[in-house]
Structure formats: C-alpha cells, structure tokens
C-alpha cells in the first residue's frame, strides 16, 4: 500500500503504455486524415477533368451545330470535315459568298479553320478529343441529316462521348 501510495502521489508524467497508446491513436488519426485529404484531392481532380471533358465537348458541339446547319455541302475523310457555307449580305442582291470551314483532328485538338474572301483563320475549339465519327456518308459526302460522335479522353478520367444529330437547313 505504501509503495502504491508513493507511486500515486509521486506521478508527474505518463507511463510508457499510456504514451504508446496515445501515439498509436494519434498515428491512426493522422493516417486517416492524410488518406482523406489524398482522396479528396483525387476526387477534385477527377471532377475537374470530367468538367473539362464536358466543356470541351459542349464547345465543339455548339460550333459544329452552327456550321453544319448552314452547309450546302460537306465531306468527311475520317479526320477532316470540310463544309461549304454560303451566305449573302443582308438585304442585298448578288451571288453567294462561300466560306469554307474545316474541322481537323490534330494531336488531340479539334481545330476549326475558316477560309473565304476575308482570308483564313484557325482556332482550337476543343482539346482532349481522341476520335470522332460522322455518319451517314456517301463516299465522303455527308448526308442531309448527320450524326457526329465526338469522343474525348483524359488519362485519369477515361473517355466520354457525345453524339449530335444535326439536320442541314438548306434546301437540297
């Protein structure tokens, strides 16, 4: 009793067992925190990638829709879509001015090039495009109603596809 009493009253720190237990609990908590942060970071990255893919596809879709509806004719050779888009100055007589718009898949980028009377210019409308397909085709000519499937891919996110069905508005 005397010994115990002495130990009890003279205790100024933690025992080895208490220290080991507290260290283990702290290590577990810190480990869980690190894992949580790592997973959260991964999730955020995946969401950003997903968003990026969706955004790229949407941008490409909006522009493709704009151009295809107004095309009098178009060809697709597997990598390049070429569209001829006639236009007239508003309220003026005269023949049509034809602008040629091409979409090419270059190194994962979908590049839109316009060329006409005013010169030519190119702009990348979507990145991370791994492949695209247009149907139906007659030879290389696109049909009046076309289905365009764009596939976008990032290493972390896998691939995502979007299919547009666009009917050309010009009378054939």
């Amino acid at each position, binding site marked *: 009793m005397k010994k115990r009493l002495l130990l009890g009253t003279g205790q100024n720190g933690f025992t080895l067992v208490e220290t080991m237990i507290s260290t283990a609990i702290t290590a577990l908590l810190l480990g869980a925190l690190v894992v949580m942060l790592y997973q959260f970071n991964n999730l955020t990255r995946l969401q950003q990638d997903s968003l990026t893919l969706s955004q790229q596809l949407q941008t490409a879709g909006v522009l493709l829709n704009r151009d295809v509806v107004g095309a009098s004719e178009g060809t697709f050779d597997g990598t390049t879509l070429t569209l001829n888009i006639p236009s007239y100055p508003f309220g003026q007589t005269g023949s049509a001015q034809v602008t040629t718009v091409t979409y090419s898949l270059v190194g994962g980028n979908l590049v839109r090039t316009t060329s006409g009377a005013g010169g030519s210019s190119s702009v990348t409308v979507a990145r991370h495009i791994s492949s695209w397909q247009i149907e*139906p085709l007659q030879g290389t000519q696109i*049909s009046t109603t076309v289905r365009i499937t764009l596939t976008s891919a990032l290493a972390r996110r896998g691939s995502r596809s979007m299919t547009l069905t666009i009917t050309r508005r010009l009378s054939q």
Partner: protein
Amino acid sequence: MKHRATFRQEERGESLPLALLALATGIILIGPLLAHLSTSLKTTAATQTTLQRQYSSDAGVEFALWKLVHDAAWRQTLLDQPGTVASLTLPSAPNGDTPTVEVVCVETETQAGGGGGEPECLEWALWAQSSTATNGLVIGGSGHTVNGGVHSNRDLKINGSGHTIYGTAEYVRNLTILGSGNRIVPGPAVQTTVQPFPITWDINEFNDPNQPGSWAAQAQAEGKYYVHNGTWNVTGSGTVIPEGLHYCTGKVNFSGSGLRGYNVTVVSLSTIDVSGSGLDFTPYVPGLSFFSTRAASTNVVSISGSGNTGGTVFAPNGKISLTGSGGVITGAFLGNEIDINGSGATINLAEVELPGSGGSSIVCGVYDIRSTSGSTVTTVRMRGCGDGDWQVLSWQVGSS
C-alpha cells in the same frame, strides 16, 4: 480533487494549436472545393448563355419563316416594298430573351403555274385498289388505331375488337364489321365507286438511269442511284441506308432496330420485308418510301415493326401486310390489298403532298431574315412562292 485541478491547469493553451490545426485542415479542404464550384458555375453559366442566345436567335428566324409562309398579307407588303426592312416582334420571349428580328424582300419574280395555294395532301392512310379481291382491306387483330382515311375498291372488313378509324372510311361492295368496340370517327363508312390510286408512280421512272428526266437519271446525276442485283439484306441495329434511290431486282429484307434511311426511296421488283422497331425514313422521291411492283395475292410488302416510313408504301399489284403490335407506324399504305394484323398498333398518316396541287401564277420572292440575340446573329435567305415550295438558300449563324 487537487490532482485533477493540477492536470487541467497543465492543459491550458492547448486549445490554440487544436484550433489552428482545424483551421488549417479546413483551408486545405475548402480551397479546392470552392475552386471547383466556381469553375463549375462559370462553365455552366457560359454554356447556358451561349445556348440560350442561339436558341433565341433560332426562334426568331423560325417565327419569321412561319409568318412569311402563313401570313399572306404581311408577305405581300414585303413584296410590294423590296429593300424595305420590316421588324418583327415575337409573341413571347423564348428563354426570357427577346431577339431582334428583321425581314426584307430582296428580289421578286412572277412564276406562272403551279405552286400557289395550299398544297393538297394525301388523306388516305390505307388504300386497297383491287376491285376483285374479296376482303381487299382487312383490319384484324385487336385495338388498332388508324389516324387517316381508309378506302377499299371492293370490301372493307373490320375484324376483331377495339379498332378505331379516325377519318373517312370508304368501300365499294361490302362492309363487314365483326367483334366489339370497333369505331369509325366521325363515321359512318361510306359506300362509293371504284377510284384510281390517289397518287401513283411508274416503275420506268426508277429502273433506267439513262432515261432523261426520270428519277433514276436524277439520282444518277447526284451520285445517289444504287442498283442491288438479287436479294438485298440489311441487318443490324441502327444501320443507316445511304441517301438516294435504291433499285433492287430481288427481295429486300430489312431487319434490326433503329434502321434509318434519310432521303431514301427503295424500289423492288420483288418483295419488301421490314422488321424491327424504331424504323426512321424520309423519302428521296417526294412522297415515296417503298415501292414493290411484284404481282401476288400474298404479301409483297410486310412491315412487322414500328417507326416512321416517312412517306408512301406503294404496292399496286400485291398485298401490304402490317403486323406490328403496340407500336406506332407512320406512312401511307397504298396496295392492291391491305391486311392489318397484330394488336394495339397505331397507324398514322404521313404527310404526302399530291403532285400538281396548288393554284396558278404566283409572285415569288427572295427574303432575308436576320435574328439577333445578344451577340448571336442568325441570317437566313429564303426563296418562296406563295404558301408552299419554300427553299432555304443560306442559313448562317455567327457573332456580331
């Protein structure tokens, strides 16, 4: 008690590191989360705005087109004042956005004959031409709905139960209605005389691409004439038939779901058999989707699926059979005999313009439409004569 008090005193000051630790953790978590939310919101808003502007601009053009085609008085004012820009106000604001719509007549010309007035459309969903075959037009099975007129040059037999015909029903010799719950709306069926096909086509238009002025020659010139010698089989899901005129010397067998043929006309010297759901066709030859010349009292055209034929299914010398169940099939079925079976199918009359319909001379105009919504500008040039036959010459979507 004293020991406990001492122990608590030793913990003083530890709340600050704990609070800092919690704060640091929160900052680490909140940062990426807010960045993600911000990017997501901005992206969505930008895309939504772009699309709304585009839809709004498109709606403005569509409204102007509708007004040009259907408002003759307004169209005439444009024709009377070429070069004068007229503004249009939409009756409602699409997506809360009101596009600015302007229309101007650029050129006028007077065209003699044809094209004036409202074009006349085929009113018969089912037509049996034979005046000799007993029960030339039979609607059997149960629960079919026919949205369109029905005509038989001999007998009209409605068998089974629960059929409804919304349209004129005509027969020449015998009308037989068996079973229960069969209705003709408005009804009743009318006895009439033998009539020619309301619309017809000649095989010589399709079999020789060297025949000047024929459909075959036109398709050949456009690179859209296809000859299939012997049996022509098309299978698979979502298969697309190439645009143009397809002339087949043998049987035509289409199967699989989602078969598509935009601007396609199929002409066969033998039978045509179409099965599967989700058929979607529009005709290359105006009004004509499928044409079989085969003469037989048995089925020469069999359609057992559902979908849209887009135009007329024409079998002047044989029987057309529809055996779908529960689906919707759109078209106009003109055969020597017609046999409807299965259950619960809906047969909708396709819009098929009758050739030569319309009035006499008419003033045609070339019009420009400009619809502006935000920075999105859609400019369209149209050429139109009266209420029908409008052509879109250009359709350009751009930015101001």
